[in-house]
């Protein structure tokens, strides 16, 4: 919807409050004008990636100068295994970007993907991924977000069932007035599919985290085993987390569950760590890093996992002094 608005320049095409899926991420309200499309890009450089990240395809996406629309496709041939690191890099200023990814996985293909998205605090940024899977595919994704004026990473996976597996994880660490939205839709189309999701977020300052996760199990998709968990920590009274984990079930032989918790940092754990000698700030950082770190720990590729942990540790560091 954002791409359409950017292409046409028509502000009324921006998604906003009146769209159920965008009630908490109001782009219409955030943008008084739609910036013109401009193919120019800002310089890369917000991340330094190890030159030899073994066996990983690293793709870097530079921020536009004004409005930017990009469409990227990836095909993993039958039986192949790919590891992808998508770095959606920050630029400066009030740019507006729409990135669309289309992934197609052949029979028995597998893809592990890490998305790290950084944006300027004034930017509006949306990245949407659609994944088509065949039988016996394995798709695993981890999205790490740090927010923007409005930032949304949306992922749709059509799961054919069979022996296929899907993991859709995410983490967000937000400070200042940043806003990050992680939205997922997993559609179980066939029998015996499995999906797992773990999304964890921490908000400080006046930041706002949004999580929407829908599991759909269509008629005939019996034997589906789908689980989703979202856990949020709010470190400040001006911060906010909005979440909607949804189950939409049209088959009866299923085991679906979601859990959603939102709360403050566990005071007991904080005291425990402090009683062992960790100063408060360090104890907080340790607990926050551990909390979101569990998302990174689920990444199979060791190189990707390290990148994720580094990213999260750096984010947790930025929280110091802003917690309360």
């Amino acid at each position: 919807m954002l791409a359409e608005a950017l292409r046409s320049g028509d502000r009324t095409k921006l998604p906003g409050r009146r769209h159920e899926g965008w009630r908490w991420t109001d782009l219409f309200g955030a943008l008084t004008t739609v910036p013109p499309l401009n193919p120019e890009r800002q310089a890369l450089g917000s991340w330094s990636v190890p030159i030899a990240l073994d066996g990983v395809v690293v793709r870097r996406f530079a921020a536009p100068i004004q409005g930017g629309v990009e469409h990227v496709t990836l095909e993993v041939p039958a039986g192949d295994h790919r590891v992808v690191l998508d770095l959606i890099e920050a630029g400066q200023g009030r740019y507006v970007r729409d990135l669309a990814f289309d992934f197609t996985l052949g029979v028995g293909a597998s893809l592990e993907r890490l998305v790290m998205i950084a944006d300027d605090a004034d930017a509006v940024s949306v990245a949407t991924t659609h994944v088509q899977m065949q039988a016996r595919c394995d798709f695993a994704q981890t999205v790490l977000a740090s927010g923007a004026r409005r930032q949304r990473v949306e992922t749709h996976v059509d799961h054919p069932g069979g022996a296929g597996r899907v993991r859709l994880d995410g983490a967000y660490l937000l400070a200042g007035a940043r806003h990050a939205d992680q939205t997922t839709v997993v559609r179980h189309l066939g029998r015996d599919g499995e999906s797992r999701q773990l999304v964890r977020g921490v908000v400080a300052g006046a930041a706002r985290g949004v999580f929407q996760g829908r599991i759909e199990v269509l008629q005939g998709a019996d034997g589906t085993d789908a689980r989703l968990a979202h856990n949020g920590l709010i470190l400040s009274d001006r911060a906010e987390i909005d979440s909607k984990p949804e189950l939409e079930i049209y088959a009866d032989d299923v085991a679906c569950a979601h859990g959603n918790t939102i709360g403050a940092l566990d005071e007991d754990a904080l005291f425990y760590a402090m009683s062992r000698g960790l100063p408060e700030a360090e104890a907080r950082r340790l607990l926050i890093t551990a909390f979101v770190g569990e998302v990174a720990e689920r990444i199979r590729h060791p190189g990707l996992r390290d990148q994720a942990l580094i990213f999260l540790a750096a984010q947790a560091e930025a929280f110091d002094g802003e917690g309360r």
Partner: protein
Amino acid sequence: MLKIDNLHVRVGEAEILKGLSLSVPTGEVHAVMGPNGAGKSTLSYTLAGRSGYEVTDGTAQLLGDDLLALNASERAAKGVFLSFQYPLEIPGVPALTFVRAALNAQRKARGEGEISAPEFLKKAKAEAANLKMDFEMLRRGLNVGFSGGEKKRMEIFQMAMLAPRLAILDETDSGLDIDALKIVSEGVNALRAADRSMLVITHYQRLLDHIRPDRVHVLAAGRIVASGGPELALELERDGYDKYGKAA
């Protein structure tokens, strides 16, 4: 080592400790026994600096320094260690990472340098072996999925690694079967030292069969109401707490 004088502590609206006084000389092991509700856990949490435990009167000093003016981590750096009755689970933080971070934070606060990784690992392996712990457990999330006995062992492991001056053992025997109790007690006894004091807080005498105290104090209704040698514990075991009155 530890000198507590006329300590009054409120938790919410209720006054739990009502003028508690207690001294533990350096190198000694003292037991504090008392019925449920006497204020045993309040004493240990107050000494460790948990928020919500409001000291309204009295003092508590460690080697002449005012403990009450410090926050929990500062007290730890001074050498106060509390073995929790219910140790916390911290998913995502391996025990080794946790202990190393704590040890280094304490050393930093005392103006000492960081411990090197090989030195730390060597010490951790040795202590784990002493406590008959599977070293792999130390690589998993702290206390996550551990049994009651494993958690208590993990507390003693941390105590060994952090080498405190004053160790407070809060109901360390609760939830332990006899074998685990032996291992934990041996671990504690191995840590007895001339420059270290211990405060063993317990409801039952059975722990004191394994960790023999120099002195025994009876805590009832927020005060120390009797003190004596190890024989006092046996007397309590025999006669119960009735003669010290009901808890507040």
